[in-house]
């Protein structure tokens, strides 16, 4: 990398007082370093550089600010940089106040950095603590998230993944699951937010995390929150159901128009199903899902879904929906004690299933490739052949 002398010189240019052109070139160079893994690892041991980048986000030159933010985003994408960034620089203290500044042009970039930093539990805790120190409660984050147009220059879509990451902490979930406030209810409509899959994914991730605490299931399933329709709507399609089937569904799922589209991102579809499966952990949850005829929606979904990983999750859910109630002592599936030999067998089955899904995926890819080749071949046969040998791939 750089020699100590070179590094020192470079660092000296990364100063607010430095001449603009030198500053600019220096920050550009550092940005270049962050573009690859080796560069990032090098900077991991250079907290002065990290701090310099943070400081230069206040530079009067927009180009330099952009480069510095870009560099910080790259660095925050690398897990090994997380602790250095939060403990060896004033990044959190300096940038958090600007996050919710409605005029701040770079708010989106701060969002992205925070969303990266909060991915893993350890640094997530640091981020959460910093938010609290700055008096930025989660309800405030949710409020801003739900206020489109809050910042005219920043979409703040990445608040979604940030919230989702933060809710891996039980203390963060408590804020979202506050019964005396209106917090989680505000997030629910965003499971269908067409304009941004980042936002949608963030919300669904948040909801999924919140469903890990089965103590809150009764409240989540009740009218006070009514989470189920919002999980089902992205999975429901335009297929016509009979009047009888319609009337048995939750209100929001009745009489859907013929142009109704399903969630297009398979990862989000999988998360939605996982959330629904989590909600079947308690007997009450299973009862409510059966009463709301969730099965009809899953039946149509199963026919439509092509991705094997998502189908597998769907089938798991359907099995619970149409299966019998477990016996005494097993009502809460999350608390059941699984005997060791059964555990081993289940792990084996899971491994086999995983293998099968990978195989299916391969097969599907091969099929698609095959189809594409056929199509290409047909296309070329229509055109006059240049070489008699046929297609060149």
């Amino acid at each position, binding site marked *: 990398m750089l020699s100590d002398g070179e590094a020192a010189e470079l660092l000296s240019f990364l100063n607010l007082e430095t001449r603009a052109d030198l500053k600019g070139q220096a920050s550009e160079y550092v940005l270049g370093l962050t573009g690859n893994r080796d560069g990032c690892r090098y900077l991991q041991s250079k907290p002065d550089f990290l701090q310099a980048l943070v400081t230069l986000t206040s530079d009067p030159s927009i180009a330099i600010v952009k480069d510095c933010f870009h560099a910080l985003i790259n660095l925050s994408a690398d897990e090994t940089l997380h602790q250095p960034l939060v403990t060896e620089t004033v990044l959190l203290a300096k940038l958090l106040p600007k996050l919710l500044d409605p005029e701040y042009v770079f708010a989106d970039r701060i969002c992205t950095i925070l969303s990266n930093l909060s991915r893993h539990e350890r640094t997530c805790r640091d981020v959460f603590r910093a938010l609290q120190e700055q008096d930025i409660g989660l309800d405030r984050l949710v409020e801003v998230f739900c206020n489109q147009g809050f910042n005219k220059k920043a979409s703040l879509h990445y608040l979604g993944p940030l919230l989702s990451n933060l809710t891996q902490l039980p203390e963060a979930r408590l804020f979202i699951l506050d019964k005396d406030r209106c917090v989680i*209810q505000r997030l629910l409509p965003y499971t269908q937010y067409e304009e941004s899959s980042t936002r949608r994914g963030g919300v669904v991730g948040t909801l999924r995390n919140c469903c890990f605490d089965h103590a809150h299931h009764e409240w989540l399933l009740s009218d006070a929150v009514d989470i189920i329709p919002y999980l089902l709507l992205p999975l429901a399609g335009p297929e016509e159901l009979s009047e009888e089937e319609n009337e048995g569904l939750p209100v929001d799922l009745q009489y859907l128009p013929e142009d109704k589209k399903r969630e297009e991102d398979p990862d989000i579809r999988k998360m939605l199903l996982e959330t629904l499966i989590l909600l079947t952990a308690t007997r009450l949850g299973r009862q409510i899902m059966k009463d709301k005829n969730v099965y009809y929606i899953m039946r149509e979904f199963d026919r439509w879904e092509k991705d094997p990983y998502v189908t597998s999750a769907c089938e798991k859910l359907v099995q619970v929906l149409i299966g019998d109630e477990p016996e005494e002592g097993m009502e809460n599936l999350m608390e059941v004690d699984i005997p060791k030999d059964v555990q081993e067998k289940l792990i084996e089955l899971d491994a086999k299933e995983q293998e099968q899904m990978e195989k299916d995926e391969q097969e599907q890819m091969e099929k698609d490739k095959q189809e594409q080749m056929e199509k290409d071949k047909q296309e070329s046969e229509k055109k006059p052949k240049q070489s008699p040998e046929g297609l060149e791939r």
Partner: protein
Amino acid sequence: MAAPAQGEDSDDGMDEFMEKFKAQKYKNAFNESNWEEEFNKVPMFMKTAPENIDPEKNPDLACIQSIIHDDDRTPEEQARGLKDEGNDYFKEKNYKKSVVSYTEGLKKNCMDLELNAILYTNRAAAHFYLGNMRSALNDATAAKKLKPDHVKAIIRGAQCSLELRNYVGVLQWCDEGLKLFPTDKKLLELRATADKLKREADKDSRKAKVKAKKEQNEKKALLAAIKERGIKLLKTELSRHRGSDSEDDDGHGGASRALADLELDGMGSQEATGARVFMDEQGVLHWPVLFLYPEHNQTDFISAFCENSSFMDHLAVMFGEELPPWDTERKYQPQNLQLFFEDPEKGHLYQVDLETSLLNVLQHQRCFLKAGSPSFIVLVSGSLFSKQFLSGKKVKRSK
């Protein structure tokens, strides 16, 4: 008591005095029978204020009231007094009067913003209970403008919007309020209620759309089936005026355009008889058909004549067992009947073969349906009337 030491005299005097009490009533005593009524007249013990205070009958009360409306006090004091007056009326559920008091209070235009906000809010509440939702909403809005953190005004605004079924409005009021008071139970409750009602309303609107679409599709299918059979629908007067500019006079071209443009709703038969052609599950059409008996000025209406049925099928039933009461000569027997349809353009009459199906007849080149309902003239073969009726007309006989 410092009684002069008068010995027996004062004691006797005392006893005498006490004796009097037992015997005589003191002056201006309350009467046993009407003491409650009397009590109510004393301002201090009044349970409710009288509607109009007559200074002659109730000088004390009039006096007190004039103190409230006394112009010597500052506007703030006056406004406050009027607020209290309004509140008293409000407690008695005399909402109309309370509105008056609050309005008077606001007219004082005092500088106290909070007081004015309260006056608006209270007046909003009075209007609310009177059912004047819009006035109530306006007052709540005015109150909030003066004092944006006046939670009662915000709650009232939300409640009014709910009554007015403006669910989006309710959510806006509640969200504004929850920003300041995130745990207010009333606001949370109103928000949840409005959310639920809004989602119900959305469902109802989706359901209506689905129904409308279904009806639209059924109409299209019906028109297509009619067209497919080559049955010609004649435009009614209404639709004729709509499309008259572009229509050509050639019978065939005009008729086919009539087919393309015609909405089934333009078929007047629906208004006249309440019946309309329909297609059953097997795709068979059933028509409302009129039989006309010009000899006796009578008509028969068959609401659902299956296109595959023959005329004789119906006539055998209609005239088979019993003849209609208007058939005084007893001559309308099925085997004697002749049916004709009229070509509306040229005026010719075409005789119908009774054994043939309705569909067959409708497909006849010169058969045009007026108002979507086929009608047929029924005559008795060889009768005097039929000879008279048919004379002078061009008649095409069936084979």
